């Protein structure tokens, strides 16, 4: 983000304010108002097409790449900084707001190079510093013990779950403030899913995490707060225990209890 803008508190909170978002003439998000607290896990849930992934991609401006897509009202602030103001450097923004995708997407390089890639882009050249940073990221992503003896082997030889944790290591290597996760476990088996969920619990001490998931159980297990979206609107946003024990809105209860979806 632009260092010349106002000096906000460094707590990595995300504030979505009266956000309308369109694909062409189609309104995909309607008046979304959401305060996402720092160093907590917030889950976005809702049926397909409800706008949850669209909102996630607004937070690191991934939607900028879609020609007809644009915010038509409102905005998003991270630590009080409007991330859509013209002076924002989008590359820097995406360094501070990392993203983990549904399908693991390691580069066709070595395990080491996958993690070191972002660090090199930031200008880190010193070998010892690179080694230390790669190890730190792999330890933090609970992958170090499994790969420390084959760091220079291809990342494509790792299992699906390991590849996804490698992608998380690649994301956290550049020390973002916020991590966006778009269905990060949908292609993983239960054991690999459990490892990623354990990782999410560990990472929230240092990062603000926002996760899109279709699994109600996963949302209830890993998140502190849950936002339920339906047809582009935020229907209910509350702490996760409240949402899954006694939601306030009937539509939320119908969705989480399997009455539609």
């Amino acid at each position, binding site marked *: 983000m632009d260092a010349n803008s106002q000096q906000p508190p460094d707590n990595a909170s995300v504030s979505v304010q009266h956000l309308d978002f369109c694909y062409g003439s189609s309104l995909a998000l309607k008046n979304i108002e959401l305060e996402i607290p720092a160093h907590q896990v917030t889950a976005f849930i809702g049926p397909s097409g409800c706008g949850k992934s669209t909102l996630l991609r607004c937070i690191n401006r991934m939607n900028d790449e879609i020609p007809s897509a644009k915010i038509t009202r409102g905005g998003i602030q991270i630590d009080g900084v409007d991330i859509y103001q013209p002076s924002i450097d989008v590359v820097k923004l995406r360094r501070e707001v990392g993203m983990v995708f549904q399908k693991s997407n390691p580069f066709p390089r070595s395990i080491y190079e996958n993690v070191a890639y972002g660090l090199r882009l930031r200008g880190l050249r010193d070998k010892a510093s690179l080694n230390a940073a790669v190890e730190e990221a792999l330890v933090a992503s609970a992958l170090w013990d499994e790969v420390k003896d084959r760091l220079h082997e291809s990342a494509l030889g790792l299992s699906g779950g390991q590849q996804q944790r490698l992608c998380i290591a690649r994301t956290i290597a550049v020390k973002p403030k916020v991590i966006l996760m778009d269905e990060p476990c949908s292609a993983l088996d239960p054991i690999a899913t459990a490892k990623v969920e354990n990782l999410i619990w560990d990472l929230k001490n240092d990062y603000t995490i926002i996760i899109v998931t279709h699994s*109600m*159980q996963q949302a*209830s297990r890993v998140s502190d707060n849950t936002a339920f979206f339906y047809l582009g609107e935020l229907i209910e946003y509350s702490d996760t225990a409240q949402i*899954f*024990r*006694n*939601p306030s809105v009937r539509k939320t*209860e*119908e969705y*989480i*209890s*399997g*009455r*539609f*979806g």
Partner: protein
Amino acid sequence: MTSHHILREFDKGMVSLKSDVLLMASLARQNLERAMRSLLERDLDLARSVIADDSDVDDLERKIDQAGIDIMVRFHPVASDLRLVITSMKMAHNLERISDHAVNIAKRSKKICKSFPLDEVGLAEPLYSLASKLLRDALMAYTDANAELGEGLKVRDRELDRMHKQMITTLSGRLETSPGRSENLLHLIFVARSIERIGDLAVNMGEDSVYLGDARDIRHEHSKPSPAPQGGSESDTPA
């Protein structure tokens, strides 16, 4: 929730669970009613049938617990569905204990029936009448997830407690003045105790219905310390 689940098996499981609770409730109430009738009408056969039929209630308790666990394992219910499963399992536990009290009453009744008629058995009738109403309303609170009806049972049970105390006082007095009837009077004291406990169990079911309907846990609220008055100090606290 009245609308249909996307999985038909889930709806079938929930309907079956609830109907088993209602069947169990009907059997437990029937056992209680027959136990009391055996006492009041000196009917030994009725008492024997209550004792024999209790195993049906026990079987249903196991069936309901198993069905509840099965639903939780297979479907991971949440919100009001989860509350219904948990409350149904608790209802089954309370109903099983009510049926046990009916058996206790039937066993005491058998002993009383085998002896000379005891005029004091009539004293148990008003207690039973009130306990039966509390039980009926507890079941209605569960069926309709009616938190208001469930929450009101605690206050209504105080009248049953008062009537129970009065009956014990009366029977204790007669124990002193009629030592020849002491064994039967003691049986009747235990009958009164069972009826009073059935009132307590109805209150428990009412509290569970509040959780079912409103997701509020009102159990043991009487034992919680009152919040300290704003701006007060220790010296304000009465000794």
